[in-house]
């Protein structure tokens, strides 16, 4: 059909109504949904954020952007800013409003960071828009105690394909006492929602385990000099150091603690199990550090090897622990769309939220299902130890970190 652009504009409504030649086009236009991905692509979290986004995009590419007849549009939003130098909760809130304001957005993946999650959750609750975070682990956001603050409309909208710091911090405290025999520990955090929550949860369990907590102080992530606090810690002679926080403060802590506190057990959470930290601090500063992720160890599963290979080839970098959980999160969203389509229900926000909440989906990490607050039912925390391997790139998480096992859970 030969037609000029002007003619097409004029004839389009009529043709669509007639449902003739253009019916396929209108069909496709009706059946498309948007999924938001909100991660901090600007600032010091950018690398980890990209690995998360890429993990989610693996799932989209595998189905060529079509699920149950719906075209999947992806809206990527960046909640990192140059003023913060890392994730910025204010930007996260703006992004949440943007997604809520767009009726085509039916579900979201993200955020990466708990500080962003705290800012986004109330807005998403108002819009009844479900988000699945592949990495933010602060327990408050889904805790019913804080429901008035983080889900004012009542229904769970913040789902996770990782467990929370209510398990990550304490389980590592158990590991420190049971396996590493740590007796006196000093705790540092970076002042962010994630870091503080993690360090506090660790501290509570460490005390229960009979570890002497010599102190708990805060690092300013925009500050460069940590020698003062580390020298102070050295004077207290601990045999363990625990850090709750992300890579911005983490890199400087790792470097400066190597000189000042060379021979003690140093551990952190998923903020330490990060490619940015490996690249910025690397060998030999990282030697001896322990890190955790709030998920099972997926990369060790031989069935996942082809997935990792594809990821490497596509993006030129290995996946992080949370590339897997981001992929899993996207699978949960797709499964919800499929079930709604099969039941003949419209794929809108309200139905998607309900469908995600009742998910029971086979993913890379096993079966994902959520409790009444949106937290994943599987509460595995995996422990890793940094052991430099010169055969692989310095920021290759899978090869530079050795998997040690599952951190013992409490009770």
């Amino acid at each position, binding site marked *: 059909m030969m037609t000029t652009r002007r003619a097409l504009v004029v004839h389009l409504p009529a043709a669509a109504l007639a449902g003739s030649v253009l019916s396929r086009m209108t069909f496709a236009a009706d059946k498309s949904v948007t999924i938001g991905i909100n991660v901090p692509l*600007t*600032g*010091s979290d*950018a*690398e980890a954020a990209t690995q998360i986004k890429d993990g989610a995009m693996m799932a989209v590419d595998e189905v060529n952007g079509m699920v149950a007849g719906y075209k999947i549009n992806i809206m990527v939003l960046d909640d*990192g800013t*140059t003023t913060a*130098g890392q994730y910025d909760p204010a930007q996260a809130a703006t992004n949440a409003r943007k997604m809520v304001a767009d009726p085509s957005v039916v579900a979201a993946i993200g955020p990466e960071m708990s500080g962003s999650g705290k800012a986004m959750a109330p807005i998403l609750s108002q819009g009844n828009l479900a988000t699945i975070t592949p990495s933010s682990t602060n327990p408050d956001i889904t805790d019913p105690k804080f429901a008035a603050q983080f889900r004012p409309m009542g229904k769970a909208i913040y789902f996770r394909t990782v467990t929370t710091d209510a398990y990550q911090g304490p389980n590592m405290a158990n590991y420190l006492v049971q396996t590493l025999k740590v007796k006196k520990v000093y705790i540092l955090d970076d002042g962010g929602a994630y870091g503080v929550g993690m360090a506090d949860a660790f501290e509570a369990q460490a005390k229960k385990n009979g570890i002497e907590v010599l102190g708990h*102080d*805060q690092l*300013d992530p*925009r*500050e*460069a*000099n940590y*020698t*003062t*606090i580390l*020298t*102070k810690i*050295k*004077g207290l*002679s601990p045999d363990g150091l625990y850090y709750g926080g992300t*890579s*911005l403060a983490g*890199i*400087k802590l790792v*470097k*400066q603690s190597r*000189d000042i506190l060379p021979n003690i057990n140093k551990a952190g959470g998923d903020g330490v199990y990060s490619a*940015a930290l490996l*690249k*910025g*601090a*690397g*060998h*030999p*500063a990282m030697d001896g550090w322990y890190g955790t992720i709030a998920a099972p160890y997926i990369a060790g599963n031989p069935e996942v090897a082809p997935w990792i290979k594809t990821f490497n080839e596509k993006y030129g970098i290995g996946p992080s622990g949370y590339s897997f959980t981001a992929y899993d999160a996207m699978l949960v969203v797709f499964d919800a769309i499929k079930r709604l389509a099969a039941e003949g229900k419209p794929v809108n926000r309200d139905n998607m939220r309900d469908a995600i909440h009742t998910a029971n989906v086979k993913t890379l990490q096993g079966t994902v299902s959520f409790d009444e607050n949106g937290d994943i039912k599987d509460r595995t925390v995996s422990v890793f130890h940094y052991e430099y391997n010169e055969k692989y790139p*310095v920021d290759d998480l899978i090869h530079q970190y050795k998997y040690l096992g599952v951190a013992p859970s409490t009770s």
Partner: protein
Amino acid sequence: MTDGAILLQQVINGLSLGAMYALLAIGFTMVYGILELINFAHFNVFMIGSFLGLWALEALGLSGQSRVLTGLELFGALAFAFAVAMLGSGLLGVAIERIALRPLRGIPGTTGMITTIGVSYILFNIILLGAGAESKNYPNPMPRLQWNISGAVVDLREVLIWAITLALMVGLQLFVSRTRLGKAMRATAQDSEAARMMGVDVDRVIVAAFFLGSALAGAAALIFGLYYNYTSFLIGYSAGLRAFTAAVLGGIGSVPGAMVGGVIIGLIETLGGQLIAVRWTDVIIFSILVLVLVFAPTGLFGRAAPTKS
């Protein structure tokens, strides 16, 4: 470690920090002394200086902490990196003066100062977009040599920092007190109008002040990178604000004041952190800034600003 050894260690840490702050504070004080302008671009000249040093070391094939140099090789590598960082930062300072500040000279009020804030943001964003946001792994080619002084540890790096800072300070002091250009600088700082009438080329003096101040910031930046093995586009602000406080404490406009102020701020940061709490050090330092501005605006070594005719 005993309490005494820890305190001594904090004094050592404080001296290293103080050396950096002092070098950085001189840039604020020199420009203020001559133009009565607070140059906020100085923060990010420092930041760019650290990147220049990083690129210089990387150009020599040094990256990460894998390679350690000794003897003449180490000296050559450091001399090259210092030359690049100082010359590059110095020229950047001159360019900022020429492009952004000279056209505004003679306009009274805060126009110049606000312009430097704008320039600061431009530099910040150039590095953010050009070099990326991630923290950079700064090479450290120095061998791990340590000495034990009654329980406290002194690293070769720290000795080098003190030696280089001291040499630069003595050099600067000689330059300002002995050379013709230095004399012209002091004259311009006292009364630029009278200096001009006596035949002093004020433009040249201003260019020299920007060059020297920025070059010392470049040296401070390289020291920063070698000391912490780290740099990023963010480093300008916290170090810059402290150095600025040091300049005010020493008496803004006074070069010896900036040196002493820098060391005092460094010691307050580490000893305050040790004896009170690390999270209170910012409060202590910036309270000093406010107290000095309110009760002793001329600082330790400053003089009251000459009245403009």
